[in-house]
């Protein structure tokens, strides 16, 4: 106990020692400038110290404190120990808004980044909270909704960045979250906002304590819920946006700081709100101190945000088993649906017919140098094989993702489960990046192999972790989330290196059908059919699993092995599709929901329906990528996201 209490002071001493080491290597103590500083009379090393290293040390403390407070506020108001600006999509919203502003309205950024960052953060956070409110703010669902909204925002931001080629150097650094400073203005701006924020948080502490008893209790005690929620969230989002605007994406400090505060014995909301900023300040200072010291010794200068993200994934895994008391184990209810179809076979048949008609239309219709039209028959021999290949590959990928989503949603009894959340896509992205960086001129096969290996490793890690906890579905989702966070942190660090090869990875991440060969397309289609067959054989498992583990076990289901087999199948399907579509597409989330809304309820109907819908969605998406900005191919994953995301929100918001 005494050791845990000593952690914070010890870490602070260590952070200060690291800073002092860097500063003294920069300039011996005797030459440090005396106050007041006269810029004109100072030597360059003196300026580097007093306008570089010093404000950097200060801003690490302040930004860490702001993020720690933001995380503590979000966790208190949502009663969710997993909430923080990263998991609620707040930071990704700021990223998207800043990227869009940099490209379309640079004038908005001249005086300050804050209003733009705040607008973006608020937008995504409100969206996530709104989705969460429909599910009683169940922690796992809110976290997954936040992650998905964040992924979507990041996907759009990536596509926008790509559209600008090499010229958005500032965006890349921002994504990495660099703490480098060249004057004191950032420090003053942060301090000026942080002090009133801490006071406001102290005022909110008592009503938040009442809220920790639950909505009904808090209302009975006379707390105005809407006002309290609104005020707390605005404060938290403002703090997060402030850090985003000043420094960029610094992930997981908001998650780690309250967790550390809790493990140090802060039980009441007031204690947590006051201790979390201190913990956050120490965490970020320590991370930045390590980076400054390595850079000063001649090591690489990595952005600090990449390091905190790297710590964040393992941290989440470490936190999960210790959270049983706070994460309710109850099954989170599914979406109410329009009712069950009387003749599901007919519904699937008509879906298939519509899809077939769609295929013919998409093959023949298109856009040429002078406009829209049908392909003339003289060009069929040249064009149709190309289009058929791309279409077959994309539709197979869509079907694969849709089936993976349908399986995961049944397995976890959680309507927000999606292949993106499984961490497979993150692992695949890392594998792809590794091949791009290790081989001089990698071919398609090497890249495919790399991505497949990465996905398989992530999946194995996930399965191994979840097996130790009996593959409990909530754990599975959160572990996948942690792997995803780890992968995106590594990718951010790669991007921050601004290597040309990073652009290859970025390009792949938004997905393209341009390089698919007929053999690949046929292989994908074969895989889709094979996995569909296997899943249809497992339909009885899929019918029992949503009823929970007690019923499954009472009926003699080999729970662990059944879950493992289904997760592996879903992972295989996701990995294969990811090779083509890139890590994010949302088809795996959307298609099962669309199938449900058509009344396809039983496992075999839902699987077939989801597969057909997924194929059709992805087919439409390829058409969009090919035509909308001809001759520039748009990213396929982005297109699928744009087609499906509005649908998804409508479906989720319908009670």
């Amino acid at each position, binding site marked *: 106990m005494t050791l845990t209490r000593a952690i914070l002071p010890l870490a602070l001493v260590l952070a200060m020692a690291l800073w002092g080491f860097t500063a003294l290597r920069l300039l011996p103590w005797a030459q440090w400038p005396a106050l007041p500083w006269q*810029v004109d009379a100072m030597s*360059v090393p003196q*300026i580097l110290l007093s*306008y*570089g290293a010093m404000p950097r040390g200060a801003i690490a403390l302040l930004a860490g404190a702001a993020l720690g407070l933001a995380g503590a506020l979000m966790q208190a108001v949502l009663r969710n120990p997993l909430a923080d600006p990263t998991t609620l999509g707040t930071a990704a919203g700021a990223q998207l808004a800043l990227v869009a502003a*940099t490209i379309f309205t*640079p004038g908005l*950024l*001249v*005086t300050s*980044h804050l209003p733009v960052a705040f607008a973006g953060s608020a937008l995504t956070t409100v969206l996530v909270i709104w989705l969460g409110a429909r599910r009683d703010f169940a922690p796992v669902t809110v976290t997954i909704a936040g992650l998905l909204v964040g992924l979507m925002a990041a996907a759009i931001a990536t596509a926008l960045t790509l559209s600008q*080629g*090499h*010229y958005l*150097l*500032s965006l*890349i*650094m921002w994504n990495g979250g*660099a703490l*480098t400073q*060249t*004057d004191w*203005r950032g420090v003053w701006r942060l301090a000026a906002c942080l002090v009133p924020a801490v006071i406001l948080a102290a005022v909110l502490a008592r009503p938040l304590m009442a809220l920790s008893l639950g909505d009904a209790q808090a209302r009975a005690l006379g707390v105005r819920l809407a006002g309290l929620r609104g005020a707390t969230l605005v404060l938290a989002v403002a703090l997060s946006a402030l850090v985003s605007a000043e420094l960029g994406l610094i992930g997981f400090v908001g998650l780690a700081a309250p967790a550390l505060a809790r493990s140090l014995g802060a039980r009441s909301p007031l204690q947590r709100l006051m201790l979390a900023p201190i913990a956050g300040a120490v965490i970020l200072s320590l991370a930045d101190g390590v980076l400054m010291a390595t850079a000063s010794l001649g090591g690489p200068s990595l952005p600090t945000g990449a390091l905190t993200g790297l710590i964040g994934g393992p941290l989440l895994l470490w936190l999960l088993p210790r959270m049983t008391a706070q994460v309710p184990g109850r099954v989170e209810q599914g979406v109410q649906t329009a009712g069950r179809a009387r003749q599901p076979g007919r519904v699937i048949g008509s879906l298939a017919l519509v899809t077939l*008609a*769609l295929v*013919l*239309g*998409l093959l*023949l*219709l*298109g856009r*040429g*140098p002078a*406009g829209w*039209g*049908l*392909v*003339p*028959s*003289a*060009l069929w021999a040249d064009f149709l094989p190309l289009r058929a290949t791309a279409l077959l590959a994309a539709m197979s990928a869509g079907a694969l993702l849709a089936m993976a989503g349908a399986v995961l949603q049944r397995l976890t009894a959680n309507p927000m489960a999606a292949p993106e959340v499984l961490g497979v896509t993150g692992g695949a992205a890392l594998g792809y990046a590794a091949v791009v960086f290790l081989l001089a*001129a*990698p*071919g*398609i096969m090497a*890249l495919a192999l790399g991505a497949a290996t990465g996905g398989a490793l992530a999946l194995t890690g996930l399965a191994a972790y979840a097996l130790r906890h009996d593959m409990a579905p909530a754990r599975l989702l959160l572990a996948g989330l942690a792997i995803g966070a780890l992968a995106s942190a590594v990718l951010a660090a790669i991007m*921050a290196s*601004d*290597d*040309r090869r990073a652009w*290859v990875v970025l*390009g792949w991440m938004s997905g*393209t059908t*341009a*390089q698919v060969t007929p053999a690949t397309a046929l292989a994908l289609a074969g895989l889709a059919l094979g996995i569909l067959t296997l899943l249809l054989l497992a339909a009885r498992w899929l019918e029992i699993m949503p009823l929970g583990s007690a019923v499954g076990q009472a009926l003699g289901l080999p729970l662990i092995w059944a879950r493992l087999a289904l997760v592996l199948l879903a992972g295989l399907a996701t990995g294969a599709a990811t090779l083509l579509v890139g890590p994010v597409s949302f088809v795996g989330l959307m298609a099962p929901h669309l199938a449900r809304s058509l009344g396809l309820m039983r496992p075999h109907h839902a699987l077939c329906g989801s597969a057909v819908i997924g194929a059709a969605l992805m087919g*439409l998406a390829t058409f969009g990528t090919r035509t909308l900005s*001809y*001759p*520039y*191919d748009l990213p396929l994953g982005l297109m699928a996201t744009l087609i499906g995301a509005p649908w998804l929100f409508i479906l989720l918001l319908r009670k």
Partner: protein
Amino acid sequence: MVTAGPQGLTRRACLVAAAMAVVTGWAPRVRAQGVAPRVAAIDWAMAETALALDHAPAAIAELLRFRPLAPLPPAPATVDLGLRGAPNIEALSLVAPDVILSSNYYAFIEDRLATLAPVFSRTIYVPREAPFPRVMTLLAELAEVLGRPADGLRAQEAAHVRLDGLARRLSGHADRPFLLIEIGDARHVRIFGDDSLFGGTLTAMGLRNAWSEGTRFAFAAPVPLERLAAFPDARLILLGEVPPHVTRALRDAALWNALPPVRHGRLHRLPALNGFGGMPTALRFADALTGALAT
């Protein structure tokens, strides 16, 4: 969304399609005989080199962004092929090129391109290797491919002459090393090394690049602004435009203003140039540098 039903493949539909083809300007490919080869350029250095040889490519990838950066104007009727990393194969096959120009960057799509026409590809930019000699050789090699070897040698000769002339005008500036940078945000810059086109051109003109550390493909990763303090003697050459909010932030930044090159007026600005260009961009850089230093 218009979709054709299963009965859409009738004779009547074909006739409609043919009519549409006329309306939309799609023409079946016709291969020209006995005239200069039609060239489609995926790589920009290749496109520039072809333009330098007076052989305008019929199609260039990412033409939208190439035009404003191109040192020599592409022909008005040039076809845009879409993204360099993912060129539109349909558009490319409509162009019906006799040869496709590519580079090591696009090795991963070379097999695909080769199904449409022979591909001429050369390695140009490689980490820690000077691209300048490669760009010079490329003039001759591409001229050979286009069947005009004499033009290549002439272009090489002209480039040498032009560069030597500019170098003589700048010989008075050889006293200090040069630091070629691009501004990222108010706290980070890219620094161009010897394996960049600009660094190489600098060396070819008898000037010295202050940045001798390793770079990855042409420029060093975004480095913190403070690294510039290590080069108090250098002339600072700023390439490309600086975003408005960065300009504002730099104006007030103590460190930036304290850098000796900035404090003593050794900061020069050049327009945005194609960082992965060919000989025409190298010459344009030399031109712009001479112009900037002369004022």
